[in-house]
């Protein structure tokens, strides 16, 4: 166990944000879960007692008759904002006094940094380069992430859970988002920051970065396993496999979407266009973990090989 190596990675000034992000995320997930739990309990209680639902404040927080429902921004909100600004300033000051911004040698095109890493918030994309060609990992995926985020409000037809934390009323939406944000985005960044070493090779935490390490990975393409050699044959085979994946994932996703009685209701509210867009984005999102599994378990590099692009 090389603690020094681990410390060097974790304490690198530019890695501090990602190290700080993990406890922050844990804290805020806990905070959200606690409120969601309280709200869900309240919802159960009110669903069971319609008479109470008519008079209840409908929030997990206490409310007594006679209390004002609205309060003045001055001073009740502004003092919080002022306090927040002061706290952020203090945090920044302390951080800036204790930790120096990194500065390496002057830029030198003839001396490649190894590993050459992007800023920490892009390391998820850089990690994707292991599994996909640059045009997918660097261009198509980021575009899909942005568009995918933008379509969320238009494909989520669930009227419940607007303006309060809940889990029971939005299971599918929240688990999808958690999967995309925590599993596919943050954990990929953590891998890119902490685990990837020289040559973008996998070094478990505590393993010394060996710049001379060589890994002889025998990566195969899917058509090779089936003994397909011709260029045209490979292209057609890949297209068929991708087609099967799409249809299979579509059916599987549909099963998942209509799993519960509640989700079936939501599904009925969706237009055909909303449903198709959601399916396409879910299937494309799923492509990433599928490709990661194929690579790590079966050592498969490409599924679909054409003269112009490989997937």
């Amino acid at each position, binding site marked *: 166990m090389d603690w020094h190596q681990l410390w060097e990675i974790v304490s690198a000034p530019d890695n501090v944000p990602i190290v700080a992000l993990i406890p922050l995320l844990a804290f805020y997930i806990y*905070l959200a879960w606690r409120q969601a739990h309280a709200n869900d309990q309240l919802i159960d209680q009110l669903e069971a007692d319609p008479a109470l639902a008519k008079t209840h404040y409908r929030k997990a*927080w206490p409310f007594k008759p006679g209390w004002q429902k*609205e309060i003045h*921004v001055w001073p009740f909100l*502004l003092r919080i904002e002022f306090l927040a600004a002061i706290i952020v300033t203090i945090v920044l000051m302390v951080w800036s006094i204790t930790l120096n911004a990194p500065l390496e040698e002057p830029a030198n095109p003839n001396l490649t940094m190894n590993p050459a890493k992007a*800023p920490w918030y892009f390391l998820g994309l850089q990690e994707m380069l292991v599994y996909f060609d640059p045009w997918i990992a660097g261009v198509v995926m980021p575009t899909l992430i942005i568009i995918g985020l933008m379509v969320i409000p238009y494909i*989520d037809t669930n009227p419940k*859970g607007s303006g309060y934390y809940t889990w029971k009323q939005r299971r599918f939406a929240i688990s999808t988002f958690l999967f995309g944000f925590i599993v596919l985005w943050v954990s990929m960044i953590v891998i890119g920051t902490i685990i990837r070493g020289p040559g973008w090779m996998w070094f478990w935490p505590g393993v010394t970065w060996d710049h001379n390490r060589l890994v002889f990975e025998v990566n195969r393409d899917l058509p090779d396993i089936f003994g397909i050699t011709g260029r045209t044959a490979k292209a057609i085979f890949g297209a068929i496999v991708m087609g099967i994946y799409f249809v299979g994932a579509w059916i599987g996703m549909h099963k998942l979407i209509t799993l519960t009685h509640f989700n079936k209701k939501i599904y009925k509210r969706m237009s055909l266009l909303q449903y198709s867009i959601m399916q396409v984005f879910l299937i494309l999102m799923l492509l990433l973990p599928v490709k990661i599994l194929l690579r790590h378990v079966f050592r498969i590099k490409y599924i679909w090989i054409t003269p112009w*692009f490989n997937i």
Partner: protein
Amino acid sequence: MPEENGNGKNGKNGRVGLAERVKEDLQALKTEIPSKAKEQIEGLKDPTKTQVYTSIFRHKHDDTPRNRALGVLSNVFLHLHPAKINRDAVRYSYTWGMGGITFYLFVVLTFTGVLLMFYYHPTKVQAFRDILYLEHDVPFGKLLRNMHRWAAHLMVIAVWLHMFRVFLTGSYKKPREFNWNIGVLLLVFTLLLSFTGYLLPDDQLGFWAVTVGTNMARATPLLGHEGPFGPQLGMTPYNDVRFGLLGGSIVDANALLRAYIWHCIGIPIVASVLMIVHFWRVRKDGGISGPAPVMLQSEADKPRRGPKAAGE
């Protein structure tokens, strides 16, 4: 005929000598001015009644509901807020305060960034030396650079957490769909702002990060010389999208200048405009989303009403 009138008035005293008149004036000075001055100094004891004060603050400051509201509404910076809000909307556990912190960090970054610009030349010869100069010679230069760097990282985290909170509370739902989209664009511009700033010290870290980043642009489908169908469309290293980003085929002087201009002028302007829209829409879409009363199944089956239906 004012002149004639004047003469007529002075007619009685017309023959009084000059010395007499001066004496009278002196007498007046002795009695009138001190009393006037006294009166005016007395008036200063309540500065809120002075013309200067009332010209700046257009309302009284007693602790009345009306003045509390006016304090927000009659101030250009504060009138972003409504006068009154949902009593639970100030709960930190609901909002996490991340949107406000993001904006505050943007202000901090603008402030420290402008100060840094005084010491920085975006040229290959000077850039790196300017950073050394900042670190070793400029008073508080190191602190300034550190603050700019860490505030930038903190802003990325704050944006993510803000987005996370907005998702978890379902705040993107009707009628706030459009504002969620503005927010997604702001996320992209935050990342781009941070990324363009990464190159500016012109050190190995920034150089290789930007090299790795822009190398992906080579592989843009159709528009990059290594991307699918790029070569077929006549893309070369000297005319593709990467060339446009860098102002050359490698990360060099032009790339530094381009990063500088995008970082200091281009993206901040676009991001500021989007921020204005973002804040404006928060208000226009009915204020922050909650904490709203929980919705029950029976109500979910009914069609929803306007913006009010979402919040209180």
